[in-house]
């Protein structure tokens, strides 16, 4: 594929998957509430139009540069995450030798961007959301780094394409069974959904997004979906063999696997209750992080 085709495919993939998640969200909640869904396919578009129609308001003395930049940066980070992943053996937008390290940087910068979004609006509930997010986001990021290092071990490389190629015989999800579940938690945390929604939850009136309206809000909401897509794409590639698969062409396999991971993520976000931030911190530091150590040791022993 030429770079132009790849770029178009990349944009279409991000937009399409964001729409897919929004549709899934609608269907899942309708099913759980026991009512018919309301225009399930078009509803996300209607909502987009509503946000575009609204004025983008200002607060008193916000840090306007950071406030407007944060949604765009968040979406951009998600975009670079997806760009790391090859659609097929020969077509990858960003063929980075240290792809996994860049993904780590994406996670770290996401925490910064979300904090900035909450901080720069100059509003107390947004700031509480921002602080909470940092407290939870940083340790979850550590977990995902251990998980990804474990996945890089059998491939003997930090590049995403090589990690995919190393799964020709056996997918990492079977070789390293703890990896995918731990990585899915990262997905919920990076896009703050369901049990990990400490940044934008309703108990702090929308948190970091409490003061934003209009087009910037649309970008912010899209960026959350795009980040979830990025996590699912990386998960599909690192644990489920990415484009590898019989009969169908590679890109189709990647899309199918990503869609399946997204279904799991949406399900998890709707099915699990949120515990208080301090208890979540305890859970992460005392249970999940040690679990990721065990996982890394296990992967290391296997790789020997």
């Amino acid at each position, binding site marked *: 594929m030429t770079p132009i085709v790849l770029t178009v495919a990349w944009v279409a993939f991000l937009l399409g998957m964001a729409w897919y998640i929004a549709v899934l969200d609608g269907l899942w909640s309708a099913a759980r509430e026991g009512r018919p869904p*309301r225009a399930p396919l078009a509803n996300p578009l209607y909502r987009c139009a509503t946000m575009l129609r609204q004025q983008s308001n200002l607060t008193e003395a916000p840090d306007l540069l950071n406030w407007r930049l944060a949604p765009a940066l968040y979406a951009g980070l998600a975009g670079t995450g997806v760009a790391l992943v090859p659609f097929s053996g020969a077509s990858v937008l960003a063929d980075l030798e240290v792809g996994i390290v860049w993904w780590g940087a994406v996670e770290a910068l996401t925490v910064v961007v979300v904090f900035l979004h909450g901080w720069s609006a100059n509003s107390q509930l947004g700031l509480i959301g921002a602080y909470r997010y940092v407290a939870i986001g940083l340790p979850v990021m550590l977990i995902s780094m251990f998980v990804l290092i474990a996945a890089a071990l059998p491939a003997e490389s930090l590049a995403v394409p090589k990690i995919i190629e190393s799964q020709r015989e056996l997918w990492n999800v079977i070789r390293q069974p703890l990896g995918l579940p731990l990585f899915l938690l990262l997905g919920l945390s990076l896009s703050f959904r369901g049990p990990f929604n400490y940044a934008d939850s309703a*108990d702090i009136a929308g948190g970091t997004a409490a003061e934003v309206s209009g087009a910037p809000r649309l970008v912010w909401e899209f960026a959350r979906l795009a980040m979830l897509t990025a996590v699912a794409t990386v998960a599909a590639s690192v644990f489920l063999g990415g484009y590898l698969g019989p009969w169908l062409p590679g890109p189709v396999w990647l899309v199918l696997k990503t869609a399946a991971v997204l279904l799991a993520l949406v399900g998890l976000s709707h099915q699990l209750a949120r515990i*208080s931030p301090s208890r979540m911190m305890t859970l992460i530091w005392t249970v999940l992080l040690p679990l990721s150590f065990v996982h890394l040791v296990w992967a290391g022993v296997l790789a020997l």
Partner: protein
Amino acid sequence: MLERLAARAPVPLFVAMGRDRAPAVERLLQSADIDVTATPRHASILLVAGRVRDSDQAYLDRIHDQLPHPRATFWWGDEQGDDVDEAQRAASFDDPVISLRALYRNLISGAHASETHRLPDEPPAPWRGKGDHGQGGEGMMGGVPYGRMMPMPPTPDIRDGLALDVYTTQIGPFMPYWPAGLVLEVTFQGDVIQSAEVVQPPYPPRDVDRVPFDRLLHETTALAQIERARAAHHLVCIARLLSLVGLPTLSRRAQILAARVRANETIAIAPLRKAAARSGLTAALAPGLGRIDDRLARELGGPAQRAAGHAIDDRSDNPMYKRLDFTPVTQTQSDCRARLAQWFDEAEQALALVSAAPDAMIGQGALVEAPWALRAPPVDYRLTELLPGLEWSEALLVLNSFDSAALCRMAPLEAP
């Protein structure tokens, strides 16, 4: 094109819950055509449900001015005079969804003009700042923007003694998941509450929940009606907690159940309870969170008292209930978990009573326990003693683990 698409979206609505809001408010909020937002910044229509105290008007105006254009206000069940446009009000017994949709469509297309600011859009005090971002000046403490207070001197943190700056702000009365009408002045360190003071007490329980109990004072009333009102009240309380722990879909299910109970339909609570338990609702409420001491539980009465293990219920002495072998359910722990379990148990028990004696009548003036403690004495305990030391999210759970009658009693206006 954009307008046509936007007009078909669910109406983004911010609800300001007033006193005596319409019985159908829960039903409205779970309609798929309505999108209840957590902040006024995301809404296009400000729905004022019920009456608003005069002292809340200023808060309401501030919320109104936070709605992005195009925006409009809709009064529901408030006896606003004829000066309010027909398109922007509904009587409390009306279903306003159709009017709301029409108003929203006209707002989007421009047929209905967007409302202007109600308050002057200017700082509350004269500008006294400097600097790029307009917040202040120079020196060790920075500036004093708009003559506002600078941070308080640090106080030792409740948890680990690290003395840091605190931040004081007013919260309420129209915050989502917040007891309607309550205004607290809260001092935070991070998101931990250091102290709280009542500025305005919450609204008393709604009329809709009291109807069968008030009727009982002067006429014979069906047991089924009384118990249905109880189950509906408890389900609404449960729904609030479900929302707070991040299960909005289950919360809407509880609201739908409450509306159906009120509409005399036969429902089962067990599936909801099971789904909530499977989603980790109990795990989300830390054991011991919001535990109250025995004395307070006794003074509060009602479900809070029974959640503390005291089997005290007016229904125990009623001959009709005695005939149905009624014994009060109780819990032991007296914390948020126990009160939630108590609501579930009592709602299930109420529906069991309905199906056991669908035609039973209770004689006029008989003593029957209300969903909350109707005749409990004033409490010598303040909500403001319960909150310090809690994180914001925990504080909200604790607040919502009490019914509005208990909150009213715990949060009277402190004498100046």
